[in-house]
Structure formats: C-alpha cells, structure tokens
C-alpha cells in the first residue's frame, strides 16, 4: 500500500487525483490539503510515502513547502506537480528537496507509475533536468571540496549520458551496470543537489545560472 498525500489548491484536481488514487489498488490517499501550511501542520500526524505537491500554492509556495517538509521528515518523497515541465521552478523544487516532477497533464496511469517508482526509491530525471544539474554543479566547485558535496565521476558520467538523451536502460548498458544502480546514482545526485541547495551561497549561484 502506497500512502499518498496531495497538496493542491485546485479543488477539482485535488479531489479528482484523490479519487483516482483511492480508486486504484495498492494506492491510498491519506490526506488532501489546500495549502502548505495545513499540510505541514498535519505532517507529524501522517506518514505518507509520497507527497504530490503543487508548486503554485496560496500562501507559502510549493518550493518553500518542500524545504520545510524535508526538514521535518528527510526521508519524505515529494513529487512536484507542475503545469509546465519547462518551468525554472521545477529545478528550484528539485534543489529544495523534491525527488521528481510531474506535469499535470500526465495521464493517470503514468502518474501512478511515477508514484510507485518514487516510493521505491527511484528518482525520475529527464535529460533536461540532467543538463541543468550539470550546470549547477559546474559553478559551485570552489566552495566545497568534500566528496560528499561534489558529484563523483560515476555520477557525472550518468548525468552526461542522461543529458544527451539516453534512457536508463541505455545508460545501464553503456556503463555496464544495472538499471537499479542507475536509479541509485540518480537518487544520490538528487541528494547532493539538495545538500548543495541548502547552503545559501550555492543557492544563489544556482539561481543565477538558471536565470
């Protein structure tokens, strides 16, 4: 059973998504929230596996919300819901702690798939995002030298392959590793991104680069 929480201000979408999730076996919607504040308030009482969070929310926006949510519960898997996949805010959200994103027009089966993937530890990353991650890390060499905060060479390889458009299977074939390992690397890349984003200077740099 995958427990999903939804934070979305559009009533129809929120209730509709909840209905779709509840209507699917093995998925349960454990809470729907209109905004971040109410979600965060109730976060302690809940134990969601995946959170679907809209970026544009009244009051605190989704990016802030993710930050606070991940601070409270670091293992939380947050999937961003966005209208545009191109939005720069997507990358911000990823830096803030999201594990992936979905466009709202994604067909339901795909949606459920993504939720499942994320709950299992995978972190979907598109080539576009991969490119942005590469750029973000380029800028930030000077500040931290520790391996923990910088990408490993393997991770860089994965990122580059992703950036030019290979899918996971192809990457796995190229690097002689399994698809799971690829997923694992990507997860780590996200973690490092989150960490990086945590520090203010980095955040600024990233923001600069993206803009």
């Amino acid at each position: 059973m995958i427990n999903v929480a939804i934070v979305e201000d559009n009533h129809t979408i929120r209730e509709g998504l909840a209905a779709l999730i509840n209507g699917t076996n093995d998925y349960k919607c454990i809470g729907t929230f209109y905004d971040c504040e109410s979600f965060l308030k109730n976060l302690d009482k809940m134990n969601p596996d995946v959170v679907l969070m809209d970026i544009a929310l009244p009051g605190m926006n989704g990016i802030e919300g993710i930050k606070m949510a991940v601070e409270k519960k670091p293992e939380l898997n947050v999937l961003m819901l966005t209208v545009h996949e191109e939005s720069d805010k997507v990358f911000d959200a990823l830096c803030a702690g999201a594990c992936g994103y979905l466009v709202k027009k994604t067909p339901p089966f795909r949606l459920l798939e993504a939720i499942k993937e994320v709950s299992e530890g995978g972190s979907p990353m598109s080539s576009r995002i991969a490119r942005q991650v590469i750029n973000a890390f380029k800028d930030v060499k000077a500040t931290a030298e520790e391996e923990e905060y910088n990408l490993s060479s393997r991770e860089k390889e994965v990122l580059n392959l992703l950036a030019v458009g290979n899918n996971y299977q192809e990457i796995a074939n190229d690097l002689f590793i399994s698809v799971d390992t690829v997923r694992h690397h990507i997860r780590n890349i996200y973690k490092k991104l989150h960490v990086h984003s945590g520090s203010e200077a980095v955040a600024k740099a990233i923001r600069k680069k993206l803009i």
Partner: protein
Amino acid sequence: MNKIVFILVISITCRIFAGVQDYTFRQIKVEDGLSQSTVLTSLQDNRGFMWFGTIDGLNRYDGYNFTIYVNDPGDSTSISDNLIKCLFEDNKKQLWIGTANGYLNKFDINTESFKRYNVKNFLETEIELPGSYFDYPLVFSRNNNVSVTSIVEDSKGNLWLSTWGNGIIRFDPKNETAKHFYHSTEDKNSLGSNRATKILIDNDSTIWIGTFGGGLNKMIVGNSSGTEKFTFTSYGNVPGRSDYLGDNRIITLLEDKDKDIWLGTYSGGLCRIKKNQKTLLPEFVKVIRYIYQEKNKHGLSNNTVMDITQDNSGYIWIGTFGGGMDRFDKATGDFLHFLNDPSDPTSFPENDILSLSLDRSGIVWVGSHVGGGVTLVRENRTKFNVLKSVPGNPNSLNDGIVWSIFEDKNNDLWMGTYRGGLNLFDEKSGEFKAFKNDPQDTNSLSSNHIRAIEEDRFGNFWIGTYSGGVNKYNPETRLFTRYVHNDNDSNSISGNQIQDIFVESDTVIWVGTFGAGLNKLTFDKNSAVSSPHVTVYRNDPTNPYSLSDDRVYVIYKDMESTMWIGTSGGGLCKFDETTGKFTSYVKDPNNPNSLNNNRVMSILEDSHNKLWIGTSGGGLSKLDRETNSFKSYTQKNGLSSAVVYGILEDNSNNLWLSTDNGIFKFNIDNESFAHFNMEDGLQSQEFNGGSYFKSSDGRMYFGGINGINYFYPDSIRTNFYVPPVVITSVNILTTQMKGDFNEIILSHNQNFISFEFSALDYSNPAENQYAFMLEGLDNEWKNVDSERRIANYINLPPGEYYFHVIGSNSDGLWNRSGTTVKLTINPPFWLTWWFITLVIIIAGTTVYYLSTLKIKQQLAIERLKTKLAADLHDNVGSSLTEISILSEVAAQTNNGLGDSKVLKSISETARQLVDTMSDIVFVVNPERDSLHDLIIKIKDSYYDFLTSAGISFRVRNIDKADDIKLPMDYKQNLLLIFKEGINNAIKHSKCKTILLEANVKGDLIDMTLSDNGCGYNQENINFGNGIRNIESRAGKINGKVEWISGSGNGTTLKFVGKISRFKKIKSFLNN
C-alpha cells in the same frame, strides 16, 4: 631796427650745378586722373592719402588712382558743391571741406558721404558786401559772400572758418552751434573787415585773421568772470612806412617753427612779423618786407604770394602767382627760385601757384592754376651725376656707349667707347678730348672699340681694344705702341680681341683675350721700354687644370695675391702661377652651392674676404673660400636683373652693382637690395660689362649705353620714409564697397572679393613693392609690384580670414606691419554650426525615438503575446486538466462499462489540448527562440511517452543550434512537422530508436528525424493527411521535406530550409 634784407650771394658750394637741381619735379594732371587742373588746396590726411581740392571736385589720391567726390544733386549726402576752397583735418582725424558756395562739409570715411553745414545758418546777420566779381582777380572771382576760405581748429576743439564776405565763424562741431564775428561800423571793437581770406591760430592761441582789403586782424579770446570776451586789433597798411604791411589785401598766413608770422599779400609781396613783435601794439610793430626786385636774383620772385609753408628742415616755401615757387632760407636770407623754363622740360613746370602743402615724407605738393594740376617737388636724394654724349656738342662724350672707365693719377677721366675711341675728360676744365684710330698713322690708336684701360707706374696707359690688340700710350710722346697678334710670331699676343688688362708689376702685364685665352707679358726691365715675352695660357680640353675657357672676361688679383680669371662660358678659374694650374669653378646643376652661371662678368673681393662674382644670367654670386661654396642672389632676393656687370664696394659695407636694370645698392650685412633707376638720374637702365671703376677717393663710375654715371656713394641717400599701407578699395563681386574697413562680413554667396592697396609713399609709387597674404587660405606671402596691386579671391569657402598686406617705398624700405582686414564669410545657414548641430540633434533624437519606440512596441507585442499565451495556457490548461481528471475518475468508477471508453477519450482529448496550449506558449515565447530551444521542446514533449514506450529518443548536434534564431512561423511549423513525424514513427514504425538531428551550414538548416523501424513502401501506405500537412507546413516556411525509407530500413524525415543566422540578441528583448 629797420631792416630790409637784401639777398647777398653766398656760394656754399663750388659745384657746377645750381641748387634747384637738388630737386626733381613730377606733374600730376587731368590725364592722370585728377578731376580738374586748378588746384586750390591740398592736404595729406592721417592715413597718408593726398587730398586735392579743385574747382571741379574733391580728389583723393593714393599714388596710383584718384577717387573723385563731386556733388550729386539727387543725393544730399554727396558733397555740397564742387568748388573746393579749403581742406582741414581736425584733431579727431575728421576731414572738413570748405566750398565756394558757402558750405562746410564733414566727410565720413565709413560711408564716404558728406554732412553739409550751410554757412548761412551760422550767421548772426548775413552781410552783403558790395563789389562785383570782376573786381577781383580771377583766382577769387568764383567766390561769393559766404564762400569758406579757410578752416582751422582751436585748442578747445572748435573750428574757425573765414568767409569771403561775412567775417569769421566759430563752429562747435559737437553741438553744431556757431558764433559769428563780423565787422560792424557801429562796433569799434569788431572784426576789421568782413572779407576774410585766412585764419591762423598761433602757438599762443592768438587768432590772426588775414583779410582782403582790411589788413591783418588779431583777435584774442579772453574770459572775464565766466563770459567770453573778444578783443580785436587791426594792422593795416601804412603808406610810406617801409617796415609795415605793404598791402592790405592779405591772401595767406603762416606761423613758422620760430613762431614768426608770415603774410602773403596780393601785391605787396611777402611780410614777416617776428615773434617778439607779435604782442606789440600796431604802431610799434616792425614788419619785415620782401618784395620783388628785378635785379635781385636771390629775392622774392613775385609780389603775389598765394601760399606759404615750412618744411622740416626749416625752409620757407612760397608759392607765387606768376613767379613760380621760392624757397627761402632763414639762415642766409636767400630765395631759391623755381621757375618754369619752357625750353627745359626738366625745369619747374608751373609759374602760377595757388596752393602749397607738405606731406610727411618731405615732398612739397604744389597746386597750380589752370592747366597746371599738381606738381610734386622732391629733394633729389640720389645724386647720380652723368656724362653723356650730346650730338653736336664737342664738349661731351663722342660716343654714348662706354665700355671702359679709368681715372688716372691726375684725376682725369679716361673712357673707352664703342666707336669713338678713347675719351679723356678733364673735370676741372670740363673739357673732353678724344683719341681715335687714324688708319694712316700706325702710331695712333689701333681701334676705336676700347674694352680696357689701365695705367702703369711709369705713366703709360695700356689700352685693350676689341680688334686691334693692345696699345701702349705714352702721354709724353703721345704715341701708341701696338701689340697685335701675329700668326707668324709665336711671341705675339694670342688674339686681338682684348677684354681685360691687369698691370701686375713693373715688368708683368696680364692680358685677357676673348677667345684666345690668357696672355702674360713679361718685360725685361720695365714695361715702358722693353718688348715683352709672351706666355699664353689656353684651354686644353684634355687637361682639367688648364684654363677653363678661352674667352677671358676679367682678370682679378685678390688680397692674398691669388689670381682669378673670369671667363665667359667656362665659369671662374683660380690660377696658381707657380704650378701653372687653373682650378675651375663651374655651374653644377646638381650642386646648389656651385657657381650660378658660367658667364662671369666681374670679380670683387670685399673687405671681409668674400669673393663676389657678377654673372650674365645668374645674378650675383658670393664665394666663401673656406668652404668653396657659392651663394647666389637673384630676382627672388630682390635683384631684379639677371646680369651683373660691375661690382664696387663702398666704405659702408655696401656693394654697388651695375646691371641691365639700373644700379643696385646691396647691403652686405642684411643682404637687401635698393634699386636705382633712370628716374634717379641714371644714363639708362642698361650698363656695360667691364665698364666700372672706383677712384682712390671713393668715387664710383659705371658706364652704360648712354654715357656714364659717377657719384660718391655716401651722397646717395635713400628714402627713409616708411610708408603707411592702406587698402584703397574692396570689391565684392563687381561692386565696390564704400568706406574704410577693418572688418568685412559677407554671406556665403558673396565670396568673390578683391582688395586693392597702396603704400602711400609718393616719391616713386611705380617702384613701391608689395606683398600680401590671406591668412586662412594662403600660407605664404605673394610678392607683387605696383602694377599688380590687386589681390583677387574667388570662391572663398565660408570661414574667417585675415587679409594682410605690406609694402615698401621705392628704395626698398618696407613697412612690415602693413595693414590687415578681417574677412568673415558666413556659411549658408545650412552649414552653420548651430544648424548642423540642431539637425544632428533632431535627427539623432528622431532615430533614437523611433528605434526605441519600435523596439518598445515589439517588446510590448512580444510580452503581450507571451502573456496572452501564458494566461490562455494557465486558465484553459487548468480547466482542461480538470476535465481530464474528472473524466478519468468517471471512467474509473464506470469500470467495464462501454462509456468508459468515451470518457477516456474525453480525458485524452483534454490532455492533448493542454499539450497544444503548451506548444502555443512555446511558439510565442520570445525567450525560447533558438533552434536549440525548439529541439529541446520536441524532446521534452515526447521523452516521457517514449521512455515509457521503451523507445530511445536521442538528439544530436544541438549545441550549435543555440546561435540560430528562429522566427515564430519557423518555430511553429517545424515543431508541428516533427511532432507529426514522431507520432508517425510511434504509430507505424514499430521502432526502438528515434534520432533527431540538426545541421546548419551557412544559410541552410537540415533537420532529420530517423527511426530504426520497419520503414515503408511508398506505394503501399497512405499516411493520410499527416504527410500532406507536413509538406504544406514545410512549404509555408520555404522549406522542403523528404522521406527516405525502404522496407525494413527505417524511415527518415528530412527537412531542409533556408534561415538567416542571427546571434541571439538576448539582452535587447529581455527588458
């Protein structure tokens, strides 16, 4: 003391010539431009111009041209009438003119117009004096009772006028008020007579009035308790008294430098009241009288004295009517007469004198009666004495062409002529004697063509002739011994054309021949007795150390005993007798420091060891023997003759040169040339080679084609007057500008201007030299002579210019500051700086405004588009998402039922719409306008789907695509083409890999979409509207699509189109 001075003849000089010959005369007549020949008055103004008042107009003279001012009945600013009686320039440099019709005219130099003051307006009461006109001499017959006879100025700036019948008037020019003083029988203390001819204000401010019939009046202006008081004293003729005025009819007055007063009377001659007599009462005054007496050759020449003036040397000049002009010497009491002699054209031209004036250079200007015009009397500074050949006069040269001159030990003058043989002139007796060839007498002169004359220590004369060889003349025996060339005698002289002879010593005589080289005659004991051994030096073409040319023109031995030979054609030779070598100096065209010309006429060593060479064709040359270089002096240095015949040095560091253009005095220090012409007394402009001599007492002789000139160089005084330089007329286009100008401002289409100018020295204006420069156009001075005294400028571009002109007098003394006129030519308004700046500002602002406006518009449009699209997308997209989800939910709850398909369709359609909207937003977004952005968009759109379908989606070569800017229609159509292409691949190809590639080459874009699917066979499969869509879309952007496929080989969709490469101007649009 009664003193009537009778002239005693005191001869100061024993010269042959009388004092009048110290002056030269030049007449200016109507033919020269003078308006009328009866000149009643003359004056030099502060600028230097000469003004003449005639009975028909006022004249201004600049040395060359006359400007005439006459009355124009239609112009009230023209002069009042043409009968000019008197001229006066006041302290403010204002010119006043008094006329016979009774007007005072004030001349305005800026407008060249006159302001008239009618004398009648100044009169307190108008007096009608009786006396008809023919009672008066012709000179005064044109007068009426208000004619202005003279004008003077007092120390307070008032003008005093004398009138012919209304006494005198004091005129205040500032307030234009007048006070009238006239004779009234009722008032004992009034002016003595109303017919005033002259007012004089003496050095003590006493006013003297000369009247015609009322004698002399003295007027004192006093001040008693604030009011003016006028006291008159009368000095009239006392018959019988010889020390008093002899005639009450006074014509003119003068106060001289010693403060004596001179009076000119109508028939009483000249009177003089000495300074100490002036304040005495009339009965005690002793007047000195000078009257004409026939037997007195040094007395006054005529009793009608019309005008008197005094020059800077103190001489009193007297103009008489009928007796010409006299010059009175106060020291000696002598009158020097200037009287016309009809038989002598060089004598004083006119005997009826009306007026005299003096200019600042010392020239006396004489205005004469009918026909006489103006005569300039100039001191003859240049005393070039002349000896000429006068046909029929045995006491003159027998031939004017003189080739050789020599003054012997007895100071007798020997002259060798062209056909007259030898002439001997004894100055003491003034007698000439000639020696000619007598064909019958072999002891006579061998030829009449004489080229050289020398004297040896024994008193013999060595004569070189031009075809008869050398002659030795013994004055005691009176015999000529001939030395001629004899072909059979190798010890004879080499040729008979003798050009020069040099007596070196008692035993050696050098002879230069024209064409036969140099001869040395060596005598055993002395040249008087023996027969010489002849050594000949000739030119040897094979020997560079031989004489350079056989035509020897001059032989010269310098102070260091070096011999120099000047040849005609072979330049200069230095002869070393010990070695027998000649070192030649010839003209080298490549060496500017070589001798200027190879025809040497004369050689002279000056007192500074420099050697001077006169040439025929190259002017003067100076040899510096230390550097062996020559410096030449020609036309551009001021030597206006290329031929220098003779060179002599005086004691004041000058060289005197005889040329083909007169005589030049060259100052060795400042290297300037002063020029003397026939006007100065030269025999002619053309002199002769070899014909020059300087005697032991410094007297110089130069011979020419018309006799010889002789002079003492120190007695040639040059003109020391530095002339003022003026611009005499300015013409714009063809119109002459009126007035006097310091600055001229013209508009751009008035840029044709000419300046005429003059240096106001009247000694010899034709010889004045000029130079001008228009600063702003020219960068060097243009030198012109007096005939080209006009500077023309055409098509001057707008700007600021300064026209500078300088000039010299006839003796080469320059006024180097000259005069300057500032000339401004205004640009047409379209070229003025303010206009141009304004235009630029306006243009710039307009361009800037328009461009930013356009950009702003574009930006606004772009932003609007983006906003609209975004709004559309967000709003509609949001609702569509809702529809999609709702229908999904509905489908879910309807699981299994048939409607669920429809609902799923609804959901799918809604989702597609959202996708389409997303595309629209992309197409419209100006920030995502590169090819790169397009490819990414395509990729991102399908990535999820393809990944989940297990199809690998690659892109290639997208980096360069960043530079290429796609216009919106390209974005849209390409997006749709390739989306359709991918859709087809997904639907039909059953592929595993899809590759999207973009290549750019120059202007062409090449995008390919390939899959590795099953391909298709063209005939078999109908793709429906999809292909047609793709092709039409490609056509819309002028591109072509191509399908490459084969069964089982995959499919490639290739688009090719033209695109201009633009660098993304991100910043521009990112506002």
